[in-house]
Structures are given as structure tokens and as C-alpha cells.
């Protein structure tokens, strides 16, 4: 809530000119490169903490949007719990964010929505490159294509997925385009030459 009100004041122009300056003003002074999230306290957050213990690392709120940070093995149980016990029956999206400098390189994000509560929650977890997170297809059929896209773009393989193939890029393509170390000009030279018959590969 605190950071929701912050931008409405007269302080609006400064944050953009100097993004790091006003942020430490609201919470305690922090290194500027972290998200100024505040703890999310609600009945559900308490329930989750009680039920999953260590596996739920953090329940927070940023810009009025709630998210749950779990350990890699906790995400799917939390997803299933939310579906069965808390009516979060609509899996909106699965995606990932690449942070190549971090040891646990990828953020994996699930967005779930509850029609009954009209509430949206994100589940986040950090995984290292090569970790195979379990699939969510068992809980939500829509996860099938969404996970395939994450695999295609980031090279994160989902364990137990019924059809772990690329979905947007050609099957034989090498490399995963949305990784940060994949240059925007980069392409699979060999694939282009072989399949499109373009000698220069351009």
C-alpha cells in the first residue's frame, strides 16, 4: 500500500529523472537495485506460510499486486493448493526472466487468477540453469503450450511435460532467443542456410 500512494504525490517528476533517489525515501534506505516490495499480510498468505513452511519464502505486494516467492520445489504444490483450496482455477500465464549474473539464473513466474475472488496472484521462484522444474500440466491443461514456449525461449525443460518440444522456433533451431546472452542479431546460421537456401545466412 505504501508504494501505491508514493507516486501520487508531488514527487512524481523526480523519480523518473533520478529513479534511484526517491525510492529509499519510502522504505528504509536500501541498495537501489531491488524492488521496493512490502510484505503481504492476509489470511491466505498466513495459510500458505503455515502449510508450506520453508517452501514459501516470501509473500509480498508491489504496486498493489500480490506475489508469492517459493523454493523451486514449492511452486507447483502452491499452485495446486491455490487451485483446489482457494479457487484460483485459471492459470493466466507462465513465463520466465533471465538474470545471467545471478547464480540462480532464471525467475520462473506463474500468474493465477480466481474468478470467485476476483483476485490475481503471482508465484515466483528462482532456478539455476539446467534445473528441470516440474510441469503444471497436471493442475492446469493450459500450461502445456505456455511451458513449451518457456522451453523454446529460455531452454528451461519442464519435468513430466507430455510434449516438451519447441513451439514458435523451428524444431532444429539451436539456441534460446530470450536468454540475455543471445544477441538480437544472432541466428542459427546453419539452419538458415540449410532450410532457406540462403548462402550468406542473412
Amino acid at each position, binding site marked *: 500500500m505504501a508504494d501505491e500512494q508514493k*507516486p501520487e504525490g508531488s514527487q*512524481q517528476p523526480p*523519480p523518473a529523472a533520478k*529513479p534511484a533517489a526517491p525510492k529509499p525515501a519510502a522504505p528504509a534506505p536500501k541498495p537501489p537495485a531491488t524492488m521496493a516490495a512490502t510484505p503481504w499480510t492476509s489470511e491466505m498468505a498466513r495459510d500458505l506460510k503455515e502449510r508450506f513452511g520453508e517452501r514459501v519464502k516470501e509473500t509480498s505486494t508491489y504496486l498493489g*499486486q500480490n506475489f508469492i516467492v517459493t523454493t523451486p520445489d514449492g511452486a507447483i504444490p502452491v499452485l495446486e493448493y491455490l487451485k483446489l483450496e482457494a479457487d484460483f482455477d485459471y492459470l493466466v500465464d507462465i513465463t520466465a526472466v533471465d538474470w545471467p549474473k545471478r547464480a540462480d539464473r532464471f525467475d520462473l513466474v506463474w500468474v493465477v487468477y480466481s474468478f470467485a475472488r*476476483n483476485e490475481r496472484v503471482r508465484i515466483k521462484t528462482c532456478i539455476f540453469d539446467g534445473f528441470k522444474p516440474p510441469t503444471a500440466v497436471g493442475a492446469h491443461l493450459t500450461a502445456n503450450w505456455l511451458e513449451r514456449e518457456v522451453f523454446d*525461449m529460455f531452454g528451461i525443460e519442464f519435468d513430466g511435460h507430455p510434449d516438451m518440444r519447441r513451439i*514458435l522456433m523451428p524444431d532444429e533451431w539451436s539456441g534460446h532467443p530470450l536468454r540475455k546472452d543471445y544477441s*538480437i542479431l544472432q541466428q542459427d546460421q546453419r539452419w538458415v542456410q540449410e532450410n532457406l537456401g540462403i548462402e550468406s545466412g542473412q
Partner: protein
Amino acid sequence: MPDSTFLDSTELVLNMGPQHPSTHGVLRVILKLDGEKVMGTSCVIGYLHRGVEKIAENRTWAQFNPYVDRMDYVAAVSNGLGYCLAVEKLLGVEAPPRAQAVRVILTELNRIASHLVWLGTHALDIGAITPVFYCFREREEALNIFEKYCGARLTTHAFRIGGLLYETYDGFEREVKAFCKMFPPKVDEYEELLTNNRIWAGRLKNVGVLTADECKEYGVTGPVLRAAGVKWDLRKAQPYSGYEKYDFEIPTRENGDTYDRYIVRMREMRQAVRIIEQAVEGMPEGPIMGKVPKVIKPPVGEAYVSIEAPKGELGYYVVSDGSVQPYRVRVRPPSFVNLQALDRMVRGGLVADVVAVIGTLDIVLGEVDR
């Protein structure tokens, strides 16, 4: 599935697309058939993949704005609105009331234009030639308003982060009102052609049924979900851009078949006219641009913002690392997610119904593949 069927005939694997007029773009569907009956399908997509999300990471926040129009190019205004709202959320800015009203007018006009493209092409797929000419005639009127407003008809780039770049042109309100007056009788015309037409009903009723539970399982949203009886529309559930001020209904139907989706979309067009009328009637005066700095640098953080696009929930998950470029922009495209339900909808049906179902899903391949 058994390998052999009646008289030991084997199943036929038929390739449909990517260059097929009724796949609405470059969608390839591999059909497994037993005679006329569909035993299963497999979609091959990605022919239009342009790496929109990768492009975002190499442009500034404002520079990426025109790119989103190229995803769902028949509803470019909605794409732009979703992106602007997402970045505004990160920045903590809100568009001024006048800008919000203009945004609502243009977005709803775009919903009508998008539904008209759907209706025309869907009817064409089924075999009704006439509606497409009618639909494109009225769509032209909506596109003319876009063109006069921002110079572009299709990929409009109508909105900017924080509000609008252009004030409305002289006669904007008059023309929008004239459109609202002209349009509902035209919807009557379409309905006269189709709603009680025996061939139309025969081809659509009980075809491609998707129940409410199946919709939720597959994450299907938009008119497909509403035709299955779920009264859910993000404009009502989580209003944005001032939608809470307008009085309109969410049309729903019970059966979740192709005919019901047709009815829902027809009613949505009428509701869109209602919203436009209210918005243009009570359009406030004032500035059209919020207090947004020249160089957009949202504070470190992330947000998921979604809107009710003509095709369903269009979401943007944006991550900022505090620099001038987005760290990550994820688009949650309604067409991509809805298309996944195609297999469930056509399995067990006839091969001719596949065409009807692809039409009723209202997919745009530019958005499926991004």
C-alpha cells in the same frame, strides 16, 4: 485410438495450411481423420514469429510502443492500451480523464472493427459471401476515424505512455456520434442475414462446444468464455481506464457452441456502441497527457496488467531494472492461449467443422506467434 477402422481402412493424416484461406493466416493444422471424422489435431505455429519480446529488450520503453500494434493487427488500439497501462502502472502515473475517455472511445471502436473482421471472415468460411462486404463497409467508417485521429488505419500507435499525443480533431465527437447512430441498424442487418438463417444455424449449433470448466482449464477467455455462461469481463471485473463509469452489460450464453459465440460477439458490438455513446457524451475537458518525464525510466520492479481485448485477456508482464529499456516484456496473448483449445473443440467432429471452429476462436496469427 485404434490403428485400423471400418473395413480395415487406415486413418488419413491431412495437412491443412499454413497457406490455407480459412486458417486466417499462417496456421498449420495437422488433422488425423477417419473418413470425415476428426480423430485428433496438432497445431504447428510460429511462422509469423518475429521475436517481439526480444525486440522490447533492445528498445526504450517508448520506442517499443509501436511494435505492440503489430501483434494483433486487427485490434492494434487494444494492444497499445494494454502496453501503455502496464508501463503507467510501473511509473505510478495515470492518464488524465480526457485521455481516458478518448482511449475508451477508440478501443471500443477497435473492438467493433475487430469483431467485424471476425464476422465477415467467419461467415465467408462457412459459405456466406454477403456479410463480409457489409462488415468491411462499416469497418471502413471506424478506420476512417482512426485515420483522421492519428494518421494510421491499422497499426495506429494511437496512445502514448501517460496519455495521448494528439488532441482529437475537429468534428471527432460529431463523427463518433454519427457512427454510433449509423451502426446498430447495420448490426440488425447482419443479424437478419444470419441469426435465423437455417444454413447458418445448422453449421454452427452444437459445433465446437467448450464448456465453462473446459474454458477455465484451458485458460480460454473473451467471448468464448462468455458464450459458455461465465459472466466475466475484465472491464467489469477489474476496471481500467475509467470503464467503471460506463453502464453496459456483459452478454453471455449457455451452450458454449459456435452459434452462441456468434450471438455473444454480436451483442458485444451493440454494448460497445453503448459505451462509446456514454464516453463521447460525457467527455471531460482538460489535459491529455499525464506527468510523464521525457526519458521514461520506471523504478526497479515488475507488474502484470491485463485488459479485455476483443479476443480475451491480453496481459503484459513488464519488468524494469531501472534503466531506459525494458528488462523484460512478456505478452500474454489471448489468441495463443485460446488456440490451444482447438483440439478439444474439434475432436470427434467433422472436418468441415474445423474451419468453423478456427473462425469462431477469432485468432490472429500475428498475436499467436508474436
